[in-house]
């Protein structure tokens, strides 16, 4: 605050006025939520927790090793990694009419650093997945012929639209104006353009 401002808005500058100003400042400083919502961990008994943690650590080590061997992440070919990921979760491509839980979809988008100005229609599955070293949102939209899977990739930059056509799947990886990209993949006879347009137009990254 400038000296002139102080003269006009804090008449005496006394201790009580300073306390008053400090009180206003404290009141204005409300808590600020983080850009990504945190999920509070559940409290578990200690020994079962250690046993579960050890099992998870062992499983994670084996998974990381197998992923490295399969060049699952750390590779340069994003298109191949996208197809590999889709094949890794084939249950997400099974046709279903059951809609995904909206609150769960929002929560996963939040954790993946994304949100939509207009939510995609007909989302049937949603999951937070490890992909090339990051947790990304992976969801499925019911398109005209069947399910189309979408990966939101804030950390993957591509220079131009990259077509995919591997192992019976077609798709595209699209760069976004705000940085990052999306991958849209369906079976060979699927029209993915509508999903691509809908998702790319409404997606916003959380900074």
């Amino acid at each position, binding site marked *: 605050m400038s000296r002139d401002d102080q003269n006009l*808005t804090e008449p005496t500058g*006394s201790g009580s006025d300073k306390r008053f100003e400090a009180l206003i400042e404290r009141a204005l400083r*409300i808590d600020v939520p983080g850009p990504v919502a945190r999920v509070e961990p559940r409290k578990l008994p200690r020994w079962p927790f250690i046993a579960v943690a050890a099992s998870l650590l062992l499983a994670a080590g084996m998974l990381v090793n197998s992923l490295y061997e399969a060049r699952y992440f750390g590779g340069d070919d994003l298109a191949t990694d996208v197809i590999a990921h889709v094949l890794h979760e084939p249950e997400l491509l099974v046709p279903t009419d059951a809609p995904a839980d909206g609150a769960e979809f929002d929560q996963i988008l939040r954790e993946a650093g994304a949100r939509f100005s207009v939510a995609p229609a007909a989302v049937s599955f949603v999951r937070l997945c490890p992909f090339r070293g990051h947790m990304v949102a992976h969801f499925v939209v019911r398109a005209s012929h069947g399910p189309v899977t979408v990966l939101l990739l804030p950390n993957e930059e591509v220079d131009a639209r990259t077509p995919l056509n591997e192992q019976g799947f077609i798709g595209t990886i699209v760069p976004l104006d705000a940085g990052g990209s999306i991958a849209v993949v369906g079976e060979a006879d699927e029209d993915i353009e509508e999903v691509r347009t809908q998702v790319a137009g409404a997606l*916003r990254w959380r900074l």
Partner: protein
Amino acid sequence: MTAAKSELELRREFDQLSRRLRPDLYRYAFWLGRDRQLAEDVVQEALLRAWKAYRDLADPSSAKAWMISIVRREFARTFERKRLETVDISDYEQQLAGDEDDPRVEEMRQAIFELEVDYREPLALQILLGHTTREIAGLMDLTEGAVLTRLHRARAKLRQAIGPDQSGDGSNKS
């Protein structure tokens, strides 16, 4: 902004800047609209707009004022689009009640919450964001005299709302 910076350097620089400023931008947006979800949406949109224009920002030292002005414009756009209803006291319970342990701060927070936006905004700009009267006048398109009047009335209303015990020595000097 220098043209020599790569896209990656600019992104890192902007990321650091937005992380540093985000808390104050969020608080400013909150005190404009008195709604946490609205504040979050406004700040997200404002940061995206800021990123798109960041390369063209001529003076990095003005980044804070520049981003505050973007938040203000984005709030106006969002408010107009959503045509938000008047907030009443029950919304204070929903938005802020229980966030603060100190009852004096809680009482003051509620008093600020109930101020008209014409008084809340310059108060937040001055106390929260450290703006001078001239800067507030420029941002709000007012004369400096009008800003000073609003700040004076804002404090008077707060003193009246919280009573002499909390507002200082009880003489109601402002």
